[in-house]
């Protein structure tokens, strides 16, 4: 039978175009990489979580308006890149858990507790992982900005800034250069929050996405910034190049 992929979106098999007929039929993978870049920056009294809105598969863009950042609780934002069906399922599950927490404790879940829950949830699927690369951003119990960064199977770390997804390699060195501060191990303790003001951090993030969009085909269309401070959460959007 001729080699082809009926759905045509999940896998592209170049061998079928060149008379190499070792592969007899369309195969499938339970995973896809839908691209996208997510990042977060924490300040002394604010945190910003941002992501582009492109969703791709291979060389095709499926939609230009896919929001990757979700408000999990009033104090917690979560952004995911990677395989969108896994990310959406994960967020659905966690949102349910956040609601249950609210019912049981009569207060919304904090970002530190949420961060641990996400780690446990990812590790539960250690041998059939959620292919999602997550960042959690929020204000901790003291009102300080917090960023948690993960791998697909639940290893995580609290940091002050992070970037994940297809533009990670382009953005992370810039953040290291601009935001790296005192080690949290130094004594007497010095705040390791980024020294930037909220406005400066917003500018930096916008620049990062504009730059990543120039070089990374999976990043583009628009960037959404969710800014959390003591007054609540507000959202900013900036268009990016659509090519």
């Amino acid at each position, binding site marked *: *039978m001729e080699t082809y992929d009926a*759905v*045509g979106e999940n896998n592209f098999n170049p061998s079928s175009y060149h008379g190499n007929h070792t592969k007899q039929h369309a*195969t*499938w993978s*339970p995973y896809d990489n839908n691209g996208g870049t997510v990042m977060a920056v924490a300040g002394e009294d604010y945190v910003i979580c941002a992501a582009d809105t492109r969703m791709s598969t291979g060389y095709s863009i*499926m939609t230009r308006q896919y929001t990757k950042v979700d408000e999990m609780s009033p104090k917690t934002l979560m952004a995911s890149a990677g395989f*969108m*069906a896994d990310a*959406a399922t994960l967020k659905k599950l966690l949102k349910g858990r956040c609601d249950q927490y609210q019912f049981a404790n009569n207060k919304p879940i904090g970002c530190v507790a949420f961060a641990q829950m996400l780690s446990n949830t990812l590790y539960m699927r250690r041998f059939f992982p959620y292919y999602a690369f997550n960042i959690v951003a929020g204000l901790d119990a003291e009102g300080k900005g917090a960023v948690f960064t993960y791998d697909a199977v639940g290893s995580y770390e609290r940091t002050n800034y992070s970037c994940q997804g297809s533009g990670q390699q382009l953005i992370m060195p810039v953040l290291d250069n601009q935001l790296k501060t005192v080690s949290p191990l130094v004594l007497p303790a010095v705040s390791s929050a980024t020294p930037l003001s909220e406005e400066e951090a917003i500018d930096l993030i916008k620049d990062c996405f504009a730059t990543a969009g120039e070089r990374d085909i999976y990043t583009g269309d628009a960037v959404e910034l969710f800014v959390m401070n003591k007054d609540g959460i507000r959202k900013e959007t900036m268009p990016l190049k659509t090519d």
Partner: protein
Amino acid sequence: MIPSRTSHSSSIGPGVVPRGADPAYDEEVKREYDLRKNIPHLGKGSKGRPFSIDPNVGVMTRTQTPYVTGTSVLAVKYKDGVLMACDTLACYGSTKRYKSIQRMKLVGKYTVVGFTGELSDFDYISTLLDELEMTDFCQDDECPRTPKEIYNYLVRVMYNRRNKFDPLWNSLVISGWDYVEKKPFLGCVGMIGQHYVDDHVATGFGNHLARPLFRESWKEEMTEQEAEKLLKSALLSCVMRDKQMMNKFQLSKITADGPGEISEPFAIDTRWGYENYVNPTKYAPGAW
């Protein structure tokens, strides 16, 4: 209420140990299940041991490779509704096998679902949707499911089957009128559960051929006539470039005014007299 038939029982993956294969275990779970017998998929209606694999059958999977397939489905929103179009062909490999297959399905009053990919898998999905629609009808509460709810349901079905490594080999387009939010709805779900909503969608080859045309010409405040014209120009490019597509199409329309309509099959005007078709190697130096 009589429990409705459920083809998609969450306790019944394909190939689970059937009732009666292990009486001792059946007895044990009966006590447990009696406590929950009113939950349809756990209690009386259930057919086997959940989360198990029947050693006589092994892990059972259905479509691992597609056989009879439909190609692109195209759809666009316009100011008072959604239009969806696809051809009526189901191919067996590259054979044009079944030429009068309706590839769109009306679900309830306000939703149309179209499919790309395996015909038999969509037949199963149709069964699920019919059951869903039946329970909804029986409730008779003037509160039918919105297209968004049907979309979310289908996302879960597709993702659940990919988790079992037993995918439904389809991309689905869900269009409809959201009578709650009073606006058109248009979404797409892939074979492994990837999903999105957008102003225009196209599955399969249409993603390469039609989507660029939509992106160029689609406008928020399009009239029905403009949307139809856009859709037909996209169908033209698809039928002239996609060998799996046939010049026999159906168009569905859904608006606030109630039941969605799926048109009678029609053809569009095609021209094959282009110079490049007559002499394909003329402008290709090095070819012969």
